[in-house]
């Protein structure tokens, strides 16, 4: 890679050069004087925590945001990128983190939508097929997007981008939706593209893959560039230090104290798909005991959301014994009744599901606690005791170190990490016997994430059962006593953490070893 770097420096102007790029939203400087150079034929990492300004920077490069200040040079020429179509004309392609695909159309039709209107569909199909095979990303252009896995959908986005023969490809968190094996495939493709002289701007917060793949890295924090480095010369912890600005310690996991008493029992849970593109659940068996943290891994969209709704009671079951909470049949109960049995739930979406965005924190406390703490919070005649909910909210804010700008702000005014700390704290404050959390640290900064994980482990060690659904394997390995994998609406047998390896879990995430579901019933 030394070769790549030196050749980049000698081979004329850089492909892309950015000087002093600034974007201001209201009073917030999302990007503050950012400098960035990308040479021809390099994979350049853009590292930073959520909210560091990576997405804002990239949107300016792709023309979907207009910078307030700064210069962008392309092949040595200053340019103004006014729109995404102009970025494409220059030769900048982008693969977004959130796909913009129509599920009811085929892959080829989706690709056609972003190309010139007069290209016949059959030509696009043929081109896409040829391109996909030559890059080792096999893709059936006639397949309906709704039927494809997330990894395959990402391929459509990549092929769509490659069809426009860009010189610079921007990839935003491409592996966050892939299994480890799928990610490996993607890396091979990216390395081939580099060998062909294309440049890649690779946005990620996963340090291992950046160290493996990238030639250079630019690190951002709070809208500013805080360093350039060669990631191969760094350790994950030194990179993390640059990203976060301080040491991040992993959660401590004392040995499990599982007492053997079953807190949550799931027996043959099935659920029909609720909509045309939602995942059915197929005969799920699971048992979570007091004192343990059980992790559920899986690529997004494999039924985790549907599973959470079924467990929480937002979707009820026909059979009462499909879900047992502390020995009681809970399948037919709604979410309030399940809470009264001692369960607590934290959904994936913070705003709009776990919390009402335009309501104050104290009111959001009431959201999940109005039934379980009726005596404390609700007075005669149904009047809310505002003093009681406010002091309880302050107690949670203090316990979880929630940082906020006003004494009792609206939920939407908090950063993602702080709101998540409040939502988790709201449930922990009850000391629930069962805690079910979907994506506990999704989009949360490293400091808050560590605190949340520690709190969940402590809850389990205090004698509660904790079920964590997460796409972040590092997180699951850090927290869980056993990990089960959800794939295609089915749940694997839990693997004790001592026996779990990244490869084993990765294979299950990719759908290996089907037909294991009944075995878990016996171990349950």
């Amino acid at each position: 890679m030394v070769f790549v770097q030196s050749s980049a420096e000698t081979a004329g102007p850089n492909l892309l050069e950015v000087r002093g790029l600034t974007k201001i939203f209201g009073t917030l400087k999302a990007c503050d004087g950012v400098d960035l150079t990308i040479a021809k034929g390099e994979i350049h990492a853009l590292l930073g925590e959520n909210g560091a300004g990576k997405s804002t920077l990239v949107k300016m490069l792709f023309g979907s945001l207009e910078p307030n200040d700064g210069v962008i040079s392309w092949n040595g020429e200053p340019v103004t990128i006014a729109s995404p179509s102009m970025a494409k004309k220059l030769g900048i392609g982008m693969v977004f983190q959130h796909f913009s695909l129509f599920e009811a159309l085929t892959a080829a039709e989706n690709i056609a939508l972003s190309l010139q209107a007069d290209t016949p569909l059959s030509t696009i199909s043929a081109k896409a097929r040829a391109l996909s095979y030559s890059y080792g990303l096999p893709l059936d252009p006639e397949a309906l997007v709704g039927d494809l896995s997330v990894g395959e959908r990402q391929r459509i986005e990549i092929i769509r981008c490659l069809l426009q023969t860009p010189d610079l490809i921007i990839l935003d968190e491409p592996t966050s939706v892939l299994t480890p094996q799928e990610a490996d495939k993607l890396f091979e493709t990216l390395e081939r593209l580099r060998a062909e002289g294309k440049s890649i701007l690779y946005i990620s917060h996963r340090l291992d893959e950046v160290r493996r793949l990238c030639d250079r890295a630019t690190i951002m924090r709070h809208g500013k560039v805080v360093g350039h480095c060669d990631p191969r010369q760094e350790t994950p912890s030194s990179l993390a230090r640059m990203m976060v600005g301080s040491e991040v310690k992993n959660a401590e996991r004392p040995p499990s104290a599982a007492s053997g008493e079953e807190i949550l029992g799931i027996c043959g849970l099935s659920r029909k798909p609720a909509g045309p593109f939602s995942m059915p659940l197929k005969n799920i068996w699971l048992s979570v005991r007091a004192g343990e943290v059980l992790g559920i891994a899986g690529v997004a969209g494999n039924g985790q959301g549907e599973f959470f709704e079924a467990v929480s009671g937002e979707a009820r079951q026909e059979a009462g014994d499909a879900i047992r909470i502390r020995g009681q049949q809970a399948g037919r109960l709604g979410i309030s009744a399940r809470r009264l049995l001692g369960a607590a739930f934290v959904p994936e979406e913070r705003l709009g599901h776990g919390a009402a965005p335009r309501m104050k924190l104290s009111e959001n406390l009431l959201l999940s606690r109005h039934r379980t703490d009726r005596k404390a919070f609700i007075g005669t005649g149904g009047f809310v005791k505002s003093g009681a909910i406010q002091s309880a909210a302050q107690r949670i804010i203090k316990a979880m170190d929630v940082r906020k700008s006003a004494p009792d702000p609206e939920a939407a005014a908090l950063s993602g990490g702080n709101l998540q700390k409040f939502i988790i704290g709201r449930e922990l404050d009850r000391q629930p016997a069962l805690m079910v959390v979907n994506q506990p640290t999704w989009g949360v900064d490293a400091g808050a994430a560590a605190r949340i994980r520690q709190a969940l482990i402590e809850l389990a060690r205090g004698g509660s059962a904790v079920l964590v659904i997460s796409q972040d394997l590092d997180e699951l390995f850090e927290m869980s006593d056993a990990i089960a994998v959800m794939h295609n609406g089915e749940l694997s047998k839990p693997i004790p953490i001592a026996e779990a390896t990244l490869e084993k879990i990765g294979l299950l995430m990719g759908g290996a070893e089907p037909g294991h579901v009944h075995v878990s019933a016996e171990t349950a």
Partner: protein
Amino acid sequence: MRLELVKRPQQSTLFAAISPLIALGLTLVAGAIVFAMLGENPFEALYYYFVDPLRELWSLHELAIKAAPLIIIAVGLSVCYLSNNWNIGAEGQFIMGGILGSMLPVLFPTFQGPLVLPLMLLMGLIGGAAYAAIPAILKTRFNTNEILTSLMLVYVAQFFLDWLVRGPWRNPEGNNFPETRRFHPDAVLPELFPADGRANLGIVFAIVAAILVWLLVSRTLKGFEVRVLGASPRAGRFAGFGTTKMVFFAFMLSGALAGLAGISEVSGAIGQLRPTISPGYGFAAIIVAFLGRLNPLGIIAAGFVLALTYLGGEAAQISIGVSDKVARVFQGMLLFFVLGCDTLIHYRIRLVRSALKSDAAAVAKAAEPASEGA
């Protein structure tokens, strides 16, 4: 070229607070232009329209009579709209409350005494609530659009009333006029200060209803449920609140209040059933609800403003000879400016000059050919 609405990153709290006043000001300006185009002196016309009716005591009584039903209905509608249920049929519920409430004095005129009036009011509440339950059932059972069903039921109610007063309920001693017999004194809503003017208990009902609903919405768990389900339905389900129950609660509460307004109007201001018992109170109340920012206390003030457009319309008809339809024009403009101000507080308008055919948003745009034409 096309216009786009872009969400503002921050809203001005100041403008959000005074937006109803801006809307009122813009309505006056636009009204002045309308009068000028009609060939009247706009200042004189506005004076007759908005100031003259406030100069005499009896006229203030009339203002209270017009404001009462508007406030009572709008207060109910505010609960409906806060919970994201769009009841547009308050006019129909008003009529049905009026009809059911009138049953006692019309069909059993010999049943008299102090019990009659409370019973009539109760039946008015029931009539409105039951009629509002129809769109609620249709919405929860068949997923129909409540805006359409509740609106269409207005016309059903109007024709039902028309048929009643021309047919079975017509006054046998009324020389074939299409109206019921006049209510006996026990069935008439008492006037507050009979010496000064006609204002009756209705305005008291309005103030009490506004205060009670304000307490309900802002201070109780039920009100919290209304607000959560309206603003974030998914968070509401997470809280364990039932969407179906809320549809019925919101519709039947607003229906009951519209029914109360109906029977109060019939037994107070009119004293009998006629083919038409409302000058569009049920629709004007929608404007009142929004002008009052869906806050029951704000609605009290907004109710008087709208009542003034009715009175002013009548006054302007007499003094400067313009059509009383001008009142409707003012109401329409008021709603237009209220909604316009609210929208522009949350969004700003951006002019897009050329159609960007192949940018990233092309995918989204391709799905809506309507916007491609720009």
